[in-house]
């Protein structure tokens, strides 16, 4: 019964949602959201770091688990803002690769630094990711819906990380999380080697 209700709500939501009207193109609003949404999902370096933030937050528990997802999008957007207005941030690519290495290592070792240290570390990486990715608006797309899509996708990646991180409550889950952290760290090393190549 409940499943039917959920399916009905989903069907109604899609039925009510307007589709593209090609007769009157609206200058990239429709493509803007999807382009922005897909942008963070098409860069593995971005994905592993965002998921690692969620995983680490889940390991750290409250208040980090709720503080990080609230603050990260805004700090990341600040990085994007700096990129948009032309403020250079040095070593952005290295910073992005390092985010995978260090956040993965933090998950792998279940590191528990003071909240302010964890927050500062993540803020630096958020600025690097935002600076690199937030300013890449393809021609013909809407800045409004692109921005919304970009932020939503990044937030959902965090949510994935936090969701996966809930296995932390079980002993085998803790082990799996640490292994995943190790994998992320290895991925970060690969991207770091690419950044220096």
């Amino acid at each position, binding site marked *: 019964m409940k499943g039917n209700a959920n399916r009905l709500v989903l069907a109604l939501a*899609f039925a009510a949602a307007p589709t593209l009207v090609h007769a009157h193109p609206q200058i990239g609003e429709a493509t803007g959201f999807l382009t922005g949404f897909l942008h963070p999902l098409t860069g593995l370096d971005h994905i592993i770091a965002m998921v690692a933030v969620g995983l680490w937050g889940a390991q750290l528990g409250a208040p980090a688990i709720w503080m990080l997802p*609230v603050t990260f999008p805004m700090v990341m957007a600040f990085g994007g803002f700096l990129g948009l207005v032309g403020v250079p941030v040095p070593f952005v690519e290295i910073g992005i690769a390092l985010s995978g290495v260090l956040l993965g290592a933090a998950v792998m070792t279940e590191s528990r630094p003071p909240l302010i240290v964890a927050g500062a570390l993540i803020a630096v990486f958020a600025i690097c990711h935002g600076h690199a990715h937030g300013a890449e*608006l393809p021609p013909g797309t809407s800045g409004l819906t692109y921005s919304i899509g970009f932020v939503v996708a990044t937030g959902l990646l965090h949510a994935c990380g936090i969701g996966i991180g809930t296995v932390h409550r079980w002993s085998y889950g803790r082990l799996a999380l640490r292994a995943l952290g190790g994998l992320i760290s290895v991925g970060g090393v690969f991207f770091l080697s690419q950044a220096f190549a």
Partner: protein
Amino acid sequence: MTRPAGSVWRAGTIGLALALAPRAASAHLVETGLGPIYDGVAHFALSPEDYVPIAGAALLAGLRGKDHARLAVLILPLAWLVGGALGGLPGAPGLAVPLWLPFLAVGILVATDLQLPTAATGVLVGALGFILGYPNGLAIAQYGQGLRGVIGSTAAIFVLVTLVAALAAGTTVAWVRIAWRVLGSWIAASGLLLLGWALRAR
């Protein structure tokens, strides 16, 4: 009162589905073929620059409690209606509201869960309704839909504000409340990026 988790999931499902669905936008007013009232509803429903900050303001009021939520349900649509009606008057001067401003202001207030007095919530949602409603009234009048178009969009706003504010005001589960704040941070982040776009365009 504890809100059943199913309601929250259903609301989330609707929101996500609508967010992911491709949509046309507001540069041209929508003609539904059903008359100006429905055109006004459709115009609002297809304008993320309007419905995102307004949903955010409803969220803000709901998070502050039922008194704030009731005030927002009354004042926000009313302010939109007044703004839209004034904007639709012949010879009404233009009013350019930076796109990023409502996003950033509302988003930050929601994300920080700022403790506002009831009167401040009323002033805030009233100002937001007016500054967003006025240019919409101007645009609707240019397309000859007049006050009926504004009334249609006001009705849509009333429904949106009522649903969102009620949902937020009924939230007692801690993580759901945090999820609302995360939504606020997404709105603020979008506003910050929009500010960047605006500055870069100059």
